């Protein structure tokens, strides 16, 4: 009897090993820092600078969450994860959250048992071609050779697109983005296809960016967002509402410059609730009242993060496009802080 109980407990422990313990927040607070899974390097989204400090758009989200929990944006440890290791790292509890431009898909959400807490970048697959090819639309690419990363959703999207449009192509399989750039520049393929943000970053590194053009067609939906494990909704809420706070802050005109001033109290009750001068929102999350203020202080609101890391004034030069606020024709729309 006792033995079977022990075996049962072991089995349960084994099964829930992936789900880790329920109170992620307690673990994080006991540990004293947040462990955030990021990419092993993606231009504009996550990369260490010359001093070893991680910088980037995804990194900004991690720092905001760390600031919301600890009031300290440096209380975060970045763990580089590859496409293969990212999900296990999260499931096994090696990292507390992933901010690793991961596409929110049905199977990752449902089957892999993760919780995407929101979307911080709406991406989509695009095409880049040399200007001298004289192509203005992806539909003109009949018979083109296409450089494509193997084993990714982009490969499947590409096949779908060409099939739907009843045109043919010849794939040139490549392994990494670095290889793709070299192959494309060497003329091994006419077209390079990957996420539009990646194309823009790649094009920015070319000697003559003007010789290459990114075609207008976006052939897939790639909503990228931070994710946490299933099963710990308290922790998921913290990450979700930190992201929402960054988005709402832009909508409400709260910036890293004026957040200190606004947190003293304003005439706008939503700003007051969010920044903690009114209401109990912080306590409901199990955090300090000034959690959102701390999160915004780190790198500013969503718009500031965007402009600093990937916006039009950076070498990557991405326009806001879909990632503008809903009030400005984009898709960013945070639920109200109430």
């Amino acid at each position, binding site marked *: 009897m006792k033995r079977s109980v022990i075996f049962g407990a072991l089995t349960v422990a084994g099964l829930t*090993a992936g789900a880790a313990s329920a109170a992620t927040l307690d673990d994080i607070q006991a540990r004293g820092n947040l462990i955030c899974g990021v990419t*092993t*390097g*993606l*231009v504009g989204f996550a990369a260490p600078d010359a001093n070893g400090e991680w910088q980037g758009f995804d990194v900004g989200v991690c720092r905001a969450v760390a600031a919301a929990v600890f009031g300290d944006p440096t209380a975060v440890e970045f763990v*580089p994860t590859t496409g293969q290791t990212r999900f296990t790292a999260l499931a096994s*509890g090696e990292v507390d959250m992933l901010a690793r431009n991961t596409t929110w898909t049905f199977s990752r959400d449902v089957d892999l048992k993760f919780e995407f807490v929101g979307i911080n970048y709406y991406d989509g697959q695009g095409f880049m071609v040399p200007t001298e090819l004289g192509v203005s639309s992806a539909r003109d690419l009949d018979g083109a050779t296409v450089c494509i990363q193997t084993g990714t959703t982009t490969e499947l999207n590409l096949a779908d697109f060409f099939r739907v449009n009843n045109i043919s192509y010849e794939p040139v399989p490549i392994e990494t983005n*670095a290889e793709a750039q070299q192959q494309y520049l060497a003329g091994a393929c006419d077209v390079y296809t990957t996420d539009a943000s990646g194309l823009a970053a*790649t094009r920015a590194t070319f000697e003559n960016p003007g010789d290459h053009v990114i075609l207008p067609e976006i052939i897939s939906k790639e909503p990228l967002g931070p994710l946490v494990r299933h099963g710990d909704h308290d922790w998921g809420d913290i990450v979700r509402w930190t992201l929402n706070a960054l988005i709402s802050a832009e909508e409400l005109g709260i910036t890293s410059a004026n957040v200190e001033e606004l947190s003293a109290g304003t005439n706008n009750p939503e700003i007051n609730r969010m920044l903690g001068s009114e209401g109990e929102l912080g306590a409901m999350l199990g955090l300090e009242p000034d959690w959102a203020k701390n999160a915004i202080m780190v790198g500013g609101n969503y718009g500031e993060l965007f402009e600093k890391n990937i916006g039009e004034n950076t070498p990557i030069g991405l326009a806001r496009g879909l990632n503008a606020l809903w009030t400005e024709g984009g898709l960013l729309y945070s639920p109200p802080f109430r």
Partner: protein
Amino acid sequence: MASDTHAQTVAYVRDTMIPEAEPPAMESGAIKWLRENLFSSTLNAVLTVLSILAIYWAVTHTVEWLVFGIWDAGSLSECREIRDMRIAEGIWPEGRNVACWAVLSDRWNQLLFGFYPQDLYWRPVAALVVFFIGVAPILFDSVPRKLFYFTALAPFICYWLLWGGTIWGPIFVALGFVLAWAVIRFGQGIVGPLAATIAAFVVPILYWIFVVGPLAGAVGAVAPIGIEFVESNDFGGFMLAFIIGITGIVMSFPLGILLALGRQSDLFIINKTCVIFIEVIRGVPLIVWLFTASLLLNYFLPPGTNFDLLLRVIIMVTFFASAYMAEVIRGGLAALPRGQYEGADSLGLDYWQSMQLIILPQALKISIPGIVNTFIGLFKDTTLVVFVGLSDPIGFTNLIRATTDWNGIYWELFIFVGALFFVCCFAMSRYSQYLERKLATDRR
């Protein structure tokens, strides 16, 4: 009279030697060498000319790129600006393409040390020095034998220097080896050789698992001696490659010897365990073992256990290398004539004595090329850890390229990484040749 006769019958007699003449120009020196080696036939002459043209083309295209490289710039675009400026000013000819070595000067520290705290760089350097002092008596005869005591301590000093933290952890772990020695030394008389050997494995392992942690914690609380702790996550660059490579090399060698002996053993369980271990580890690609270490192990360990990824990877790499090492050494053991084994037995030596004094010195000498080959392979294989997200030199080339400053830079980084690996591997190879020459006293 005879000479007179001779003088009248022969018109001229040389009475001095002709001075040695230079050989014909076509048959000596550089010209002969050229004729024999490069232009011995029409076909060869054509091939030679073509090869020279190819080499000339390659050299002129790369040397310019390498030599005129720009060392002082903050980003790839700055490099390009500097180059364009020099071309515009007429200092450089039109169309010259140069390397942008500035990435190395900008990220030198990261390529070597990863994210290791900058003010603590002296620690990995000191660890490397300790390592070289530690291996000196193994590598060279002329070094005083007393240094072997230091060799035994070196791994623990290196560990402490690299990771830091309390000094008691490494000390109590080291005491485990003393414990093992004591069990063998004094246990043989009490429980017999076989039981003592088994106990010498079991007792220290139990000690490490159950005693070291609490003991080090307790003593550390009383006497907190230590240096700043650095997490494995901060390790990267060539430091990481060296740590994995050197640990793998140092530990796979004794493990490989034990496995090779075990595979030759008559004891059923030991023999079969070693055979299965070697065949399973060797039969599966290293990358699979690395993924096992990084992905699967997490699911088997209880939630919340934080089993360091670097440690897991080092263990896997060591196992992998020791399986290969075992087979290399087994080759050496098998190459020894049967008489050597019988001779050792006839002298009345027991198993360990005969191995230590007669069999292994000869077997290892035969295996040197294979052993060094395995070492070099292992060292280069450390770059595979990039696939489990560790920031080794190759991983850092990706990370550096992921910044907007250096996106689009390839050759400079790969050439640097390649050059450093080449230096290390070439040094190992030269040492093994030196060792072979030195030990080539018999078996002519």
